[in-house]
C-alpha cells in the first residue's frame, strides 16, 4: 500500500519565493495522479518534495502512512523518471537498469530476470548492451522507464517524461504509460504542463496555479464541472470562451446581456441553472463560459464576430473569430464555406454553459 498524503505542504526557497503554499492532497494507492499547471505553478516542486530531492519547508508528507519529511530519498523506495531521462552515459542499458538493484543487493539472477522482463515489456530487449547515446529519444525514454520499473518501487514519480519526444511518439508513449500503470498496479504521480496528457492519463487531475491547488477531480469532472475560471480556461483545447455581461431576467428566462462594441449588445439565454443560484446575481456582472464544441453558429440573435482564421483539422474545423480583440473559438464539423473576413453569429448552447462569479472567479453552479 502506498497512498501519499500531503498535509499543509509548503516550500519557500532561500530567496523567499513561495513555490508551494500549504497544499493538502491525498493520492490513493494505485492511483494515476497528474499534477498539471502552467510553468512556475509549483508542480515540479511538489513532486521533488515527494521524492525527497527538495527539502520540505513546512507541513507533512506521508507515504504508506509513514511520515517521510526527514527520510533520505534513497530510503523512500520511490522511482523517478526525469524529463531528460538522466541515463548514466558511461553505462550500458543493462547496467543502467541494474544500478539500483545492485545497490539494493538483489541476487544476480534475480536482477537478470527482472531486467529481461522489463526490457521485454518495453520492447528494448535488443538494446541492452548498447550505450544510451546510441539509442533514439523514444528508446532512451523506455530505458528510463525500465530503470524505474525493475526496482519495483511503491511509487513512480514522473517529471514531464514525454516532453522531449516528438508528437507522434508522445501519443504512443502516452498509451504505453497507461498500460504500464494498469499492469504494475502502483501509485503514479505524473507532472506535466500539457493538459492533453493530464486528461488522457490521469485517474485524477490536480490543477495547480501559483503554488496552490485549484481543483482535484477526475478528468471528466474537471472538464465538465470546473471549479473556477482558471481550471475552466486551462483544461480543454482550444480554450473555453468567456463572456462578461449582466444577468437579467425576462419573464421566466434568464439571459446574459453583454456589450459587443460596434455590433451593439448581445443576449445569451441561460438555462437549466437553478433559480436560487442565479437570483443573487440578478442585474449584476457574471462570466459565462462555453467550450468551442458547445458554441453554435446561428442566423438569429447572438454575438456577431469577424472570422480571422479557420483551421481544418480533418474531420473538424476550428473557427477563430475576433470580438473586440478577444479570440472566440467555435468547433464545427467539416466542411464549411466560412472563410476569413466573414461575419458570423455565435451562440453558446444554453444547456452546456458554465457561470462564474467575476470577483471570486468561482463556479456558480
Amino acid at each position: 500500500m502506498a497512498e501519499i498524503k500531503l498535509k499543509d505542504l509548503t516550500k519557500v526557497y532561500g530567496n523567499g519565493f513561495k513555490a508551494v503554499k500549504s497544499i493538502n492532497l491525498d493520492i490513493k494507492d494505485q492511483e494515476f495522479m497528474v499534477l498539471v499547471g502552467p510553468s512556475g505553478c509549483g508542480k515540479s516542486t511538489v513532486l521533488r518534495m515527494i521524492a525527497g530531492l527538495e527539502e520540505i519547508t513546512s507541513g507533512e508528507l506521508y507515504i504508506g502512512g509513514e511520515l517521510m519529511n526527514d527520510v533520505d530519498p534513497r530510503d523512500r523506495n520511490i522511482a523517478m523518471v526525469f524529463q531528460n531521462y538522466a541515463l548514466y552515459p558511461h553505462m550500458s542499458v543493462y547496467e543502467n537498469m541494474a544500478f539500483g538493484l545492485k545497490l539494493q543487493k538483489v541476487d544476480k539472477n534475480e536482477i537478470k530476470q527482472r531486467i529481461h522482463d522489463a526490457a521485454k515489456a518495453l520492447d528494448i530487449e535488443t538494446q541492452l548492451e548498447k550505450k544510451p547515446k546510441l539509442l533514439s529519444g523514444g528508446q532512451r525514454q523506455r530505458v528510463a522507464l525500465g530503470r524505474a520499473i525493475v526496482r519495483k518501487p511503491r511509487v513512480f514519480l514522473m517529471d514531464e517524461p514525454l516532453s522531449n519526444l516528438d508528437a507522434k511518439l508522445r501519443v504512443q508513449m502516452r498509451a504505453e504509460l497507461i498500460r504500464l500503470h494498469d499492469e504494475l498496479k502502483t501509485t503514479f504521480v505524473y507532472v506535466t504542463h500539457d493538459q492533453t496528457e493530464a486528461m488522457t492519463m490521469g485517474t485524477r487531475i490536480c490543477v495547480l496555479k501559483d503554488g496552490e491547488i485549484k481543483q482535484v477531480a477526475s478528468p471528466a469532472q474537471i472538464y465538465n464541472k470546473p471549479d473556477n475560471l482558471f481550471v475552466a480556461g486551462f483544461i480543454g483545447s482550444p480554450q473555453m470562451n468567456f463572456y462578461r455581461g449582466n444577468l437579467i431576467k425576462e419573464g421566466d428566462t434568464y439571459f446574459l446581456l453583454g456589450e459587443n462594441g460596434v455590433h451593439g449588445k448581445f443576449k445569451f439565454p441561460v438555462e437549466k441553472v437553478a433559480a436560487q443560484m442565479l437570483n443573487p446575481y440578478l442585474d449584476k456582472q457574471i462570466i459565462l463560459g462555453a467550450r468551442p464544441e458547445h458554441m453554435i453558429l446561428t442566423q438569429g440573435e447572438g454575438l456577431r464576430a469577424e472570422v480571422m482564421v479557420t483551421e481544418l483539422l480533418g474531420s473538424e474545423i476550428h473557427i477563430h473569430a475576433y470580438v473586440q480583440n478577444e479570440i472566440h473559438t467555435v468547433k464545427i464539423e467539416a466542411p464549411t464555406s466560412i472563410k476569413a473576413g466573414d461575419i458570423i453569429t455565435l451562440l453558446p448552447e444554453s444547456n452546456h454553459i458554465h457561470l462564474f462569479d467575476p470577483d471570486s472567479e468561482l463556479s456558480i453552479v
Partner: protein
Amino acid sequence: MKKAIKTSTLLKIIIILYLFIILFPFLWVSLTSFRPESDIWSSNALNLKGMRFTDDNYAKLFKTTIFNSLKNSLIISSITTVYVTLIASLAAYSIARLKFKFKKLLTVVILATSMFPQMIVVGPIYRIFVNLGWTNSYYISLPYSMLTLPVAVFILITHFSQIPREMEESAIMDGSSKINTFFKIILPLAAPGIFTSAIMTFIGAWNEFLLSLTLNTDEMWRTATVSISFLRGQFEIFWGQVTAATVIVTIPTLIIVILFQKQIVSGITSGALKE
C-alpha cells in the same frame, strides 16, 4: 577568394615563425647536447654543417646521480598528481554543486593562492619543514599543491557543473549514497576533466624548481630539475651535460603531451561553450 588565400598563407607563415621561435631553444639545446664540450662555446658553435657528433655528454651524465633524481621527480610528481587530483575533485565538486556560505570567497581564496609569488612563501615553508624535520623527503609534495591545486580545481569546477543535476538525483533515487554517486556516476562523467587536471598537475610538479632546490638539499633527494643546475665544477658549468640532462628531463612530459594532446585540448576547452 584570392584575399582569403593570401590571409591563410600569411597566417601559415606567422604560425611557422612562431613555432620556430618557441621551439628554437629546445632544438638548440638538443643539438648542443650531442656536441663535444669544446665546441659549444668555440667559433664552431654556429657551424651546423661541419658539426661534430658525440655521445660523450650523455655518457658522462649517466655516471652522475641523474637517474636517482629522475626517480625522485617521478615519485614526487606522481604522489602530487594522485592526492591533488583527489582533493581537487572533491573541492571542485563541492564548489560546483553544494550550497554553503562564503562559497564565492572560498573560490577567490583558492584562486589567489596560485597568484602569490613563490619567493614569498618559500621562506616560511622552509622554516616549517625544518621544524617538522620534513626536509629531504617526499613531503615536498605537500607544498607542490600550492602550485597545482588551484588550476586543477578550476578545470574541474567547469567539468562538474556541466554534468546534469538530474544524473545525480537519479542515482540518489536509485538508492545510491552521496559518496557512491560521486565515485560511480560523477567521476566517470568528469573523466576528461580529471584527466586534464592530472596531467597539468604532473607536468607542473615535474618542472618545479624553487621549492625543490630549497627543501630537498641532500643530493640523494634532489629532483631532476635541481640536479641539472648542479652539473657544474668549481669554475665551470658542464654545458654539454646540462643540455643532455635537459633533453632527458623533457622527454617524459613530451611523451605525455603527444600521447594525450587530444584529451588535454578537449579538457581545457570544454565548458567554454554551451553544447
